[in-house]
């Protein structure tokens, strides 16, 4: 049997690789490999051998030049050892091959700053949006209600009827577009699968702390038109079991956490389309 294979890239300040790999396995992937960027740059591990790429949370290079900026620069310029191939070419080929990429928190920041999202018209290398400092001016660790857009093409959020509850943990999560046209297009094409809302998941909100950073139109996550690439600030890998919920000792909750669905959807997609 061919295996569904997920890869989680770590190194230079990525922090969530273990729980992301754990979520992939729970979600149905046969393998979830944690690959240090050094192993990819050395050619020891190649993205081509995987179906689902996780760019997960952390502080790449300390977010020293703005979140994920230095890594975006590194991926663009660094070459795979012993070849002429730039690392970025492995990424674009991965996308062209119809595979899945999920960016969480710092990974979302990286995708946006590399231009992988929103990926208008198949252009995955032009930055049109950004994630910058929270309006509150502070790092925030708090749980957020995320209203789902059921019309979104995103593969990962399929089947979410109203919304999901996940933690955010960031200082730079405020989503902004370079122009009104970009924002319009994101809205028209339903490229924002998740937005900050109240507990009823009724409507997006700009109100702190429900919207923890002041993101435009309450946008918490973004996908491309194919739905195979998605990024979000909240952490789905941080809620795969009920004991991770902040009120699990007082509420009747299902065994599985809300975030697990994103990984299950990824695994289902891989089995149906890529194996």
């Amino acid at each position, binding site marked *: 049997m061919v295996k569904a294979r997920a890869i989680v890239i770590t190194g230079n300040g990525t922090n969530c690789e273990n729980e992301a790999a754990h979520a992939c396995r729970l979600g149905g992937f046969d393998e979830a490999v944690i690959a240090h960027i050094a192993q990819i740059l050395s050619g020891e591990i190649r993205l081509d051998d995987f179906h689902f790429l996780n760019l997960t949370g952390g502080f790449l290079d300390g977010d020293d030049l703005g979140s994920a900026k*230095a890594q975006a620069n590194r991926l663009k310029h660094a070459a795979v050892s012993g070849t002429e191939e730039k690392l970025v070419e492995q990424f674009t080929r991965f996308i062209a091959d119809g595979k899945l990429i999920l960016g969480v928190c710092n990974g979302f920041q990286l995708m946006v700053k590399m231009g992988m999202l929103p990926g208008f018209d198949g252009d995955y290398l032009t930055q049109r949006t950004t994630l910058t400092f*929270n309006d509150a*001016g502070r*790092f925030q660790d708090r749980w957020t209600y995320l209203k789902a857009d059921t019309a979104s093409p995103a593969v990962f959020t399929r089947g979410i009827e109203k919304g999901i509850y996940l933690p955010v*943990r960031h200082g730079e999560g405020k989503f902004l577009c370079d122009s009104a046209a970009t924002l319009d297009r994101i809205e028209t094409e339903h490229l924002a699968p998740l937005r900050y809302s109240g507990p009823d998941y009724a409507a997006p909100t700009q109100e702190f702390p429900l919207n923890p950073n002041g993101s435009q139109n309450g946008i918490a996550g973004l996908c491309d038109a194919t739905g195979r690439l998605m990024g979000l600030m909240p*952490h789905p890998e941080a809620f795969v079991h009920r*004991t991770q919920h902040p009120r699990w000792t007082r509420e009747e909750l299902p065994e599985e956490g809300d975030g697990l669905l994103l990984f299950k959807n990824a695994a289902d997609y891989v089995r149906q389309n890529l194996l």
Partner: protein
Amino acid sequence: MAHRIEVTLKDGIRDARGERIQREISHFLHLQVDEVRTLDVYTVDAALSQSEIEEAAAGPFSDPVIQEWAIDTPTALTRPLKGEGAAFDWAIEVGFRPGVTDNVGRTAREAIEYQTGRPFGAGEGVYTAVQYLLNGKLTAADVERIATGLLCNTLIQRFTVLSRDEFSARGGFPAIVPNVTGETRAAVREIDLEVSDEELMRISKDGVLALTLEEMRIIQAHYRDPQVQASRTAQGLGPKPTDVELECLAQTWSEHCKHKIFAGTVQYEDENGNRQEIRSLFKSFIQRTTKDVREKLGDNDFCLSVFKDNAGVIKFNDDWSLVFKVETHNSPSALDPYGGALTGIVGVNRDPFGTGQGAKLIFNTDVFCFADPFYEKPLPARLLHPRRIYEGVVEGVEHGGNKSGIPTVNGSLVFDERFCGKPLVFCGTAGLMPAEVNGTPGYEKSIEPGDLIVMTGGRIGKDGIHGATFSSEELNENSPVTAVQIGDPITQKRMFDFLIRARDKGLYRFITDNGAGGLSSSVGEMAGECGGCRMDLSRAPLKYPGLNPWEILISEAQERMSLAVPPDRIDEFMTMAKRYGVEATILGEFTDSGVFHILYGDRTVAWLPMEFMHEGLPPMQLPAKWAPPAHDEPAVEAKADYTADLTALLSSLNICSKESVVRRYDHEVQGGSVVKPFTGVANDGPSDAAVVRPILDSFEGVVTAHGICPRYSDIDTYHMTANAIDEALRNYVAVGGSLELVAGLDNFCWCDPVLSEKTPDGPYKMAQLVRSNQALYDVCMAYSLPLISGKDSMKNDFYDGGVKISIPPTLLFSVIGKIEDARTAVTMDVKRPGDIVYLLGKTGFELGGSEYLALKGQIGNSVPVVHTEKAYARYQAYHRAVLAGAVASCHDLSDGGLAVAAAESAFAGGFGLSLDLSRVLWMGDSADRSDAALLFAESASRHLVTVRPEKQDAFESIMSGNCFASIGVVTAEQTLTITGLGGGTVVRAKLGDLKEAWQAPLREL
């Protein structure tokens, strides 16, 4: 030539940083500023073409969606602020002083190297600064105040102020390159110790050696020894010590590294005149506690490695062990709160990482002791305002913990005015270690002669020189600026990512951290393992040229580990390090020569017999005399209604919500969070302890908690200590921690207890230390709590020749243990109306040192006494009730007593409580029984528990034989109602009002 790249926000983009500065100027300095705008400045000093500079500015240095950039052009002149007319009135630019760690500058440099494909040359670099543009009616003096009082710590940063006119006339700020210039001279001085005693002390004082006259004389005698002189001659050394040797001895023998007070001989006299000689408090109490507890535990002993390594190690299960260490970083945090605290957290990370063969880090804890951030009185020179210390420390730990990817799961903030003399910054880190690494126990390591000395991680600079010796003295006006370091979590993270993989491949035999004393301490201790070393300082990688050998040896530059690598693994080790982008350098080799042999190139610069280094110091002689203080016994006023007192207590700094700080710490990364710092219906009730699952496919959990109560030291440090230990354990027990597997860590922070001219009350402070140690033994034995690690910091005073401020003696007691199944954990929020409320334990007239008396400016004498035997039996019974699923909620009673605990549990759960004080069990004289004592006494070992009615029988039968009483019920009303002894209502308050009182004080900080 150097180029300035300025990066500024586009029009219409909110400048959150500028807005925060504007608020802080108003809040801190009471100055009104209309607008603050901020710019990032990169000064690039490297041979780059114009197009390469432009690519850097447009690429990694700026975000095209929200930012614009300019090269060698002062953007402030070209873009107006939001107000009409003048673009700005004042400009301030703040950058680092030469040699200070500039993390952003380092990343910026790497980014350019990736772009161009060329490494920077020697002396080239990128330096960052921030420009602040201020709009408002300010005088030059106001602006200077803003710069020095808020924006710039002049110890590590430099600033320039320009008015609008000056700015225009000069075309903005010049490009400033704060590089360190210097040549490698490798100068080694010889120090003549054949001098008078006064001169010996001058050498110690001027050199920040912190050596006493007696210690200087011991060194003098060593160098007079003809045998020593003969062996030195053979090495080409003269009879006088080199500066390398003297500095090395000063580090090794510093209070910070050697713990001379805990190792000293104490002549203790109690209040009845009974005398006792105590040879080493450490051996007599701390080590003995662990030894005796382990004997008591017998086959159930779970300790694996105690006291001998960087952190303590206990068993978690058959496959994994737990590692835990708590450190303090007080003196550096007093000078540079941000850098000091950041270094504190990334520094303690290296302890569990450098324990045994290395451990993965699973959580951080932090406890800060500050003076009131709203302090309004004048402060002695050199002391920073408590609010600045608060802000800086909180931010430093935020960056250190979050960026390292380690969840901060537990902590607290403690306030007392005396902490303005020195803040206390406790940082703890736990790790998870494989029970076996490559076939040997994970907690064991060894060195064999011939193994190579390898240093990995950061480079060596002048930062942190004399950190160990300076923290062994009181803080004074001349405390050295080089003692300050700034941590770099990313360099450390890269190193850990590499080393943990190298561990699993068996590429090294021994690992330890470079902390206080730098290489002199790490390699010095490692050399003790095999009996010597030979190390060449000229091979050490430097941040910049110009360091002398002694500076290289003792620099506390951060992010470094020292390792012993077998010669047959060295090639693989070095290759792998390079691949992971980690600098690794071979500095020499370990030997069995019996000598700490240091070279610079071919020349011997230090030749110290290991025995003299490690055993040459006789124990200190320390007088201690205990005389119990007698405070006024306050008359506790009887009132009909205590609601206002309760509200005031909830708003007191020690009790109020710390959520604004805690939310800045990532407490969930790594995915194992089970009991978070905040819980309840609105995620804002204060948890007693933390529970995490370090292994994601298992439900076995780790529980950690702590206790700290310095106020009780004003009465008796014996009870301060007993209560701190009890508080830690009762917090731990509350959430469901198992008493079968729990260990303690002691962190003593004392004011100088050594009798001297500066410290005439030394014998009293020393007696306080003795009493604290006595309690440590007594309580830990009763609770079967082995001590596995700890630390002491004994010089927490400020003295400028006139004013002396000594902190209250403080013990932080931390516990770490296990919960077999994390799904049985209990939180503190009440769960549903109708549940029965129980108070476990008895209450007595124990208001001494309480928050209630502190509110009224009093201390009292009736300090809470811990009755360990009853408490331990009750904790065991309670744990059985938890395992039986009989407990709905549980909250520990501490500061503010029953009333505060009840209010917190109620508003956290979103349901009211109706309690009756007449049902609370009382101990002691019934004449003292009063509403005030029942509400606010801080009697130890008590829990407030709620139980579902259907579990009542089960709970009561499990608890039978212990002191507990049903005292009320959870109600659907949003009200806390407490009935007094007289039958009247003594507290009635809406939960919303109580919560608001509790949340308001620190919400905006």
